[in-house]
C-alpha cells in the first residue's frame, strides 16, 4: 500500500496557485527527497499532507485514508518554523505533547534527545539555539511513533555534527520500524546519502518522481563543443554554455556523438539542472 | 575597479586572550587568533560554540570581557562599525518597503566610503530589478541585495553570519560564486559562518573551528588537510572527537 498518494492536488492562495495538478504515489518504507526552489510548493504540499490546510483541488490520501482537515494518527510533521512553546522547559513541552497524543512514547523522545548533543531538558525552549529547537521538534515528532514522517527542512539549522546525528536517527527509524520519510531540503549532498526516492517540485508541479537510481540512470550529462550541440539527441533539460563548451543535462539521451563526454549525473547535478531550467523559464516569462 | 589599498602588514584580525562572558557563562574563552589577509575564512562550529560572539567582537558590537582584539590594527571602540568592516547578519536585515534603489541610497547615506557604481554593478550582475520593492524579492535576490549593500562600502573585511541559510541550491551556488569573485578581485578578507561545509570546499581557503568557546582548529586549509582530506570531513572528525571528549 502506498503511504502517501496525491491525485490532481492543487492549492490556491488568492490569485496564485502554490501547487497545481500534483500527482504522485509514495510506496511504504521509502525515504523521499522533496526538492525544488523556494516557493515551489514543497512546504504547501507537506502541510496539506499533514492536514493543516485543505487542497483547493484534488485529494491526498495517507495509507489509503483521505486527509480531511486533521492529521492522520500515523503521521508526524516537522514544520519549517519549528513551532514550539518558548516559555516551557523541554521537559514540560514533552509532557504537553504526551497529553495531546493518544499514541505516544516518552522513552522514544528521551532516546532521540539523548542521541543529540547539547539539549538540556531543564532549559526553556526559547533559550535554545535554532539547532537545539530543531532537535527537540524532531524528537517530538518521533514520539508519536509514526508510520509516515513528514519533515520540512529538517537539517536547516543544524551544524555538521548535528546533521550527521539527525540523519543517523532518521535512518535508524527507517531501518527498525519501516517508517516512510518525506523530507524537503536544499542540502542535496546530505539527501543523497539517505534518500532512495526523489520528488522534484517546481512552480507547483511535479517535474521528477521516481527511484533515485532509476532517475539518474535515465539522465546523462554531456560535455562537448558548443558548436556541435545540434548533433546531440535527447530531451534537453538545461544547458550551461561558455564560449566554446556546452554542458548539457539530457533525459532519454541517445549515445553521445564523437567529441562529447557522457556521464551519469549525481543527485546534485540533476537537481541543479532542473532548477536552472525553471529559472530560465521564469526569467523568460518575466521578460515577455 | 581598483584594488583596496591596504598595507599588507596590517592583519585584518588579531585577537589575543579574547573572552566574552554572559550571565549564563563564557561564550568565548581565551581565544587567540590571527586571520591573515586576502583569505576566505570558513567559521565553523556547533550552535553555541561562539561563532556569533566572535563576529560580534570583531565588528565591535560586543565588548570583550578579557583580552584584546585589533581589526586592521585598530581596536573596535563600540562606536559603530569600523569603516573597513562590513557585517551581514543572519536575518539579512533590509527594509521591505524600500526599493532596491532606495536601499542603495540608504547605504550611500550611512557609509562614508560608499561606491555607488560598484554596488549597482553587483545588483545588475544578480539580475535584480532596481525598482522592485525589497519585500517582493525572493530569498536569493534579497541576499544578493544585502550583499551589494555590504560590499558597496568597499570593506577590507566582510563578515557574513550564515549567509546561505534558507537559499535553494542555485541561489547558494550563485552567492558563493559572487563572494569568491569579489573577494579575489577586490582583495577583501571574507569570514563566513556556515554549517554546510561541502559547498565551502571550493571556496574557503582558511578554516576556524570553534567548540564551546575555544578554538579547536585554525589555519589555511592547504596546511590543515595536507593529505587531501576534504574540509567537511576534517571538521566533522574534530567536532566528533571534541564531543566524545566531553562525554567522557
Amino acid at each position, binding site marked *: 500500500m502506498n503511504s502517501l498518494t496525491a491525485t490532481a492536488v492543487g492549492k490556491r492562495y488568492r490569485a496564485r496557485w502554490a501547487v497545481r495538478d500534483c500527482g504522485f504515489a509514495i510506496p511504504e518504507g521509502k525515504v523521499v527527497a522533496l526538492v525544488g526552489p523556494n516557493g515551489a510548493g514543497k512546504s504547501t504540499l507537506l502541510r496539506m499532507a499533514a492536514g*493543516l490546510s485543505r487542497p483547493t483541488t484534488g485529494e491526498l490520501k495517507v495509507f489509503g485514508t483521505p486527509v480531511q482537515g486533521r492529521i492522520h494518527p500515523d503521521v508526524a510533521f516537522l*514544520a519549517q*518554523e519549528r513551532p*514550539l512553546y518558548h516559555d516551557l522547559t523541554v521537559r514540560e513541552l514533552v509532557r504537553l505533547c504526551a497529553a*495531546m*497524543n493518544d499514541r505516544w512514547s516518552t522513552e522514544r523522545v528521551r532516546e532521540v534527545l539523548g542521541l543529540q548533543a547539547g539539549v538540556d531538558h531543564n532549559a526553556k525552549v526559547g533559550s535554545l539555539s535554532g539547532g537545539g529547537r530543531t532537535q527537540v521538534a524532531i524528537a517530538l515528532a518521533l514520539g*508519536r511513533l509514526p508510520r509516515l514522517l513528514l519533515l520540512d527542512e529538517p537539517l536547516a539549522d543544524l551544524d555538521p555534527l548535528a546533521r550527521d546525528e539527525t540523519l543517523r536517527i532518521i535512518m535508524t527509524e527507517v531501518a527498525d520500524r519501516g517508517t516512510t520519510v518525506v523530507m524537503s531540503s536544499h542540502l542535496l549532498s546530505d539527501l543523497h546519502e539517505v534518500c532512495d526516492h526523489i520528488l522534484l517540485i517546481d512552480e507547483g508541479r511535479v517535474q521528477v518522481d521516481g527511484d533515485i537510481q532509476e532517475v539518474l540512470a535515465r539522465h546523462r550529462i554531456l560535455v562537448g563543443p558548443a558548436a556541435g550541440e545540434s548533433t546531440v539527441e535527447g530531451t534537453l533539460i538545461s544547458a550551461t554554455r561558455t564560449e566554446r563548451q556546452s554542458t548539457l543535462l539530457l533525459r532519454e539521451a541517445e549515445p553521445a556523438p564523437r567529441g562529447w563526454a557522457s556521464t551519469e549525473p549525481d543527485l546534485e547535478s540533476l537537481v541543479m539542472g532542473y532548477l536552472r531550467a525553471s529559472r530560465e523559464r521564469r526569467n523568460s516569462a518575466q521578460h515577455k | 575597479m581598483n584594488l583596496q589599498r591596504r598595507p599588507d602588514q596590517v592583519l585584518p584580525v588579531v585577537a589575543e586572550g579574547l573572552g566574552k562572558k554572559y550571565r549564563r557563562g563564557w561564550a568565548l574563552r581565551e581565544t587567540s587568533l590571527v586571520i591573515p589577509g586576502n583569505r576566505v575564512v570558513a567559521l565553523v562550529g556547533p550552535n553555541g560554540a561562539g561563532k556569533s560572539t566572535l563576529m560580534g567582537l570583531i565588528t565591535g558590537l560586543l565588548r570583550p570581557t578579557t583580552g584584546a582584539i585589533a581589526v586592521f590594527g585598530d581596536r573596535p571602540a563600540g562606536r559603530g562599525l569600523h569603516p573597513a568592516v562590513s557585517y551581514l547578519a543572519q536575518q539579512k536585515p533590509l527594509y521591505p518597503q524600500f526599493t532596491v534603489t532606495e536601499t542603495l541610497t540608504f547605504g550611500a547615506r550611512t557609509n562614508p566610503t560608499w561606491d555607488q557604481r560598484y554596488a549597482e554593478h553587483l545588483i545588475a550582475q544578480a539580475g535584480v530589478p532596481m525598482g522592485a520593492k525589497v519585500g517582493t524579492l525572493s530569498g536569493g535576490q534579497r541576499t544578493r541585495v544585502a550583499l551589494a549593500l555590504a560590499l558597496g562600502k568597499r570593506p577590507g573585511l566582510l563578515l557574513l553570519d550564515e549567509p546561505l541559510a534558507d537559499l535553494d541550491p542555485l541561489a547558494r551556488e550563485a552567492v558563493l560564486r559572487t563572494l569568491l569573485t569579489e573577494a579575489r578581485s577586490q582583495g577583501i578578507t571574507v569570514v563566513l559562518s556556515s554549517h554546510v561545509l561541502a559547498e565551502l570546499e571550493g571556496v574557503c581557503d582558511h578554516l576556524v573551528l570553534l567548540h564551546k568557546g575555544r578554538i579547536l582548529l585554525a589555519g589555511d586549509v592547504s596546511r590543515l588537510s595536507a593529505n587531501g582530506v576534504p574540509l567537511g570531513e576534517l571538521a566533522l572528525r574534530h567536532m566528533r572527537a571534541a564531543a566524545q571528549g566531553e562525554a567522557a
Partner: protein
Amino acid sequence: MIWASWRQQRLQLITLLGLLVVGVGAIALLRSSMLDSITSSQLTACVTQPLQDCAVPEAAKAFQEEWSNPLDMARLLIICVPALIGVFIGAPLFARELEQGTYVLAFTQSVSRTRWMLSKLVIALVPALVVLIALQYLVTWWLSAAGTLGPLKNGAFTALNFGIAHASPVGYALFAFALGTFLGVVSRRTLVAMTAGLGAFVVVRFALSGLVNSLVPTQRVEGTPDRQLTVHEDGSLVLADGYLDTAGQPVPEDEVNALIQACKTTPAGAGTPESQQEFLACLPKSGLAKQYADVIGESQAWQVHLADVAIFGGLAVLLLAGTAWVLRRQN
C-alpha cells in the same frame, strides 16, 4: 489536556489570584473603615431609614461626601472587569497561538482541534468568572453596608447599579470573552484583537442596553395630572410617560406640548396660586385627563437582568461557535 492548558496559562491564573487577594483585602479593609465611620458619626440608624428621616443630616452629608467616591470606584471596578476579561484573557487566548505559529504544534498532535479549543477556553474562562463573581459579591456586600447613605439608594436601574447586579456582569464578561476570542482567531494578531475587542464591546454594550429594556413587560401606572407620579422617584425604570386623553389613549407629545403651552397663557397673573389652580383645571379640559407612565418596578428588576443575560449570553454562544468554526477551518 487540562495540565497542558493550565501550564500554558499559569502566569495569567496566578495574576488573577493575586488580583483577587488584593481585591478582597482592599474591599474588606475599606468596608470596615466605612463601618467605623458610620458608628462614630452615630449614623447607624440612618443607614436603614430614608434619607429625610435621618436624625443627624449634617453627619450624613459629610459621610456621603467622604465615601461616595470610593463607593463609585468600587462600582466602576465591577463595570470594568468584564471588559478587562475580554481584552486580557479572551483576545490573546487564540490570537497569540495563531500569531506565533505554535498552533501548528497543537494541530499536528492527536488531540482534536475542538477538544484543544474547549480545554483552553475552560481553563481561561472559569477562574476569571470566579474572580468576577467574588469581587461582585464583595462590592455588593460593601455597598449594602452603606444602605440608604450609599449609591444603592438610587435604585436598581441606574447605569452603575444595574450593571453590577444579579447575573449581568457575568453575562457581559461572557460576551466580552467570546468577542475577544472570535476577533483573535479572525485577525490572528493579539494587539488587533485586544483593541478591536475593547472597542466593539463598548459599542455593543451600550447599543443593546435599550433593547434589553424593551424585552420585559411593563406596567402602566396612571395618576392625576396635578402632581408628579411617584414612580419617577422610587427607583422604578420609566420607559415611557406622558398624558392620556379621556378615552385612555396616549396623547402625542407635540400635542401635549401645545396644550400645556395653551393652558399656561391664562388671564390670571403668572406664579399666583390661582394661576396654578387654573392651569391644573385647564389640563383635563384640554383633553389631558391623566398622567401615565410605563414602568418596570424595582421588584421586577430581576426580569430585566434575565433578559440582559439572555441577550449577552446568547451572543457569547454565537461568537464561541464562530470561533470554533474558524479554528476548524484554519488554513
